[in-house]
């Protein structure tokens, strides 16, 4: 099995010049913006507030609740379980379906106050190799404690959904080592319910446990 090479990433935020004033506009935007925008708005909070737990809501849910004041719809958008999705297309469809169902079921159409529109953004991701390499589980655990939060984020979040690898990079490597149980446990972690530091420690603990087996 190949060594595990740790990469890191940095994101650039793109302004799309697309905005929404109400739920209908939000739906229109969700349908037309690029995948990188859906990914951005479902992961920005996590990335920028990675020290917070439980996870703050995605941007769509936050705006609907806090700006439009529709807590019920906000809750539906908040409760979308991102970990279940293998592609951004699926995630986009889920949000669109919730908004369509809402629009069909209500006559309440509220515009946001001036200046509080939802601004669609997107991200460009720049991926770099780091100097960190692991040849076995012991080295992996040691290195994982040292790499940046961005590196952890790249291998756990970007790899699965943004790059659509189907699962996170760590699980794939553990599989290749024949550590199926470790791979399965890492894959079944809900990374969205941890702080990133908490997630790092959780994986390190798992790796150490299986390394001693």
């Amino acid at each position: 099995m190949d060594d595990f090479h740790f990469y890191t990433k940095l994101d650039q935020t793109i302004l799309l010049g697309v905005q929404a004033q109400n739920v209908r506009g939000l739906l229109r935007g969700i349908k037309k913006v690029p995948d990188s925008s859906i990914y951005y708005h479902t992961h920005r909070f996590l990335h920028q507030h990675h020290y917070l737990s439980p996870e703050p809501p995605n941007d769509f849910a936050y705006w609907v609740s806090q700006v439009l004041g529709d807590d019920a719809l906000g809750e539906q958008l908040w409760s979308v379980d991102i970990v279940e999705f293998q592609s951004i297309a699926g995630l986009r469809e889920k949000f669109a379906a919730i908004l369509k169902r809402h629009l069909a079921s209500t006559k309440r159409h509220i515009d946001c106050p001036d200046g509080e529109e939802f601004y669609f953004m997107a991200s460009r991701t720049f991926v770099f190799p780091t100097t960190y390499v692991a040849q076995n589980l012991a080295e992996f655990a040691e290195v994982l404690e040292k790499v940046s939060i961005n590196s952890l984020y790249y291998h756990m979040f970007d790899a699965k959904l943004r790059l659509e690898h189907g699962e996170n990079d760590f699980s794939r490597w553990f599989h290749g080592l024949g550590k199926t149980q470790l791979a399965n446990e890492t894959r079944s972690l809900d990374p969205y319910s941890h702080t990133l530091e908490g997630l790092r420690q959780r994986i390190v603990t798992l790796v150490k446990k299986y390394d001693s087996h």
Partner: protein
Amino acid sequence: MEELFLLAERLSGRVIQNINSTAVGGGVAEILSRMVPLLGQLGVKARWDVIKGDEKFFAITKKFHNGLHGVPTKLNNGEYEYFLEVNRQNAADIVFDDIVFVHDPQPVALIEKRSEIGKRWVWRCHIDFSRPDPKIWKFLSQFVTRYDATVFSAPAFAQKIPVPQLLIAPSIDPLSDKNRELPEQTIDSVFERFGIDRSRPVVTQISRFDYLKDPLGVIQAYKRARAHVDMQLVLAGGGATDDPEGPMIMERVKEEAEKDRDIFALFLPPASDIEINALQRGSTVILQKSLREGFGLTVAEALWKAKPTIAGAVGGIPLQITHKHSGILTHSIEGTAHWIRQLISAPEYAAKLGANGREHIRNNFLITRHIKDYLLLFVSLFHDGDVVYL
């Protein structure tokens, strides 16, 4: 830091040339005076040129500035022509480097040189661009759209233009006098000097005495909250010389302060960074009840000091505060009063907001992030695609 060096390596052999209209004074010059040396320390060659212009030119660009901020402004054809003439003179004099980083509208027409010399060009807009005067924007957009990329400070400033628009928020320098740690004695001495009692709750807004910062709304919120909790109110800042309503606002604030011993209206001279730092650090709650705002770096300053902060949900403030997570966003005097009471009465919750706010600033609004964004911007000029492997 390791990631900054990784990025800096990708710019090896290239020179970043910043161009703006003033070497001293104003936020852009302040940012560049910190940024250019820091880029050098990372091994990135960076220089800074200032365009030359006379009084007539700067009177015209001041009109641009006001118009872009939504103030009704008229310019005649001669003024547009003169603006172009000065830009062309500068373009002829300047020796351009690999990446030309143009700041604000004054030098925007230097891009005309591109058809002759090529290079990579970026336009950085530092001002509130949410409601630009349509005529001025139409004139400027013919130049803006020729750049490789544009940069704005808040999502609301994005325009419908066919060139990439990037979000790069401003930042604070944690080691500057306004933000560095201060000994308790310094904070005590500043409070003593102004006669403010540190043993009682202190609610502070640091801002110019400007209608858009709503100091009179702050006083009303204080009065409502004061009916339920003991507190003092500090309004500290300078005047607004370019705001015709400024003197009237200052007078009204003074009148209110004279009627209430617990209101402190402090008119601070420009070099008061230590005093501002001490007032923020010694306060129980910080307000920024703006009605409009470009970015609102005073919010980042307060959050960096782990202060529970209540601010208007305008401009760049929602980027800094996530309501009930890293601070409180309000829309009215009544809402502000409500949250002042809540935060004074629930110090543990207030402390949690402050701690989260500090983490948010640490991760997103310190100068290191700002430099990272700029380096990424320069690197990105040479790559296409949503995901770029470097």
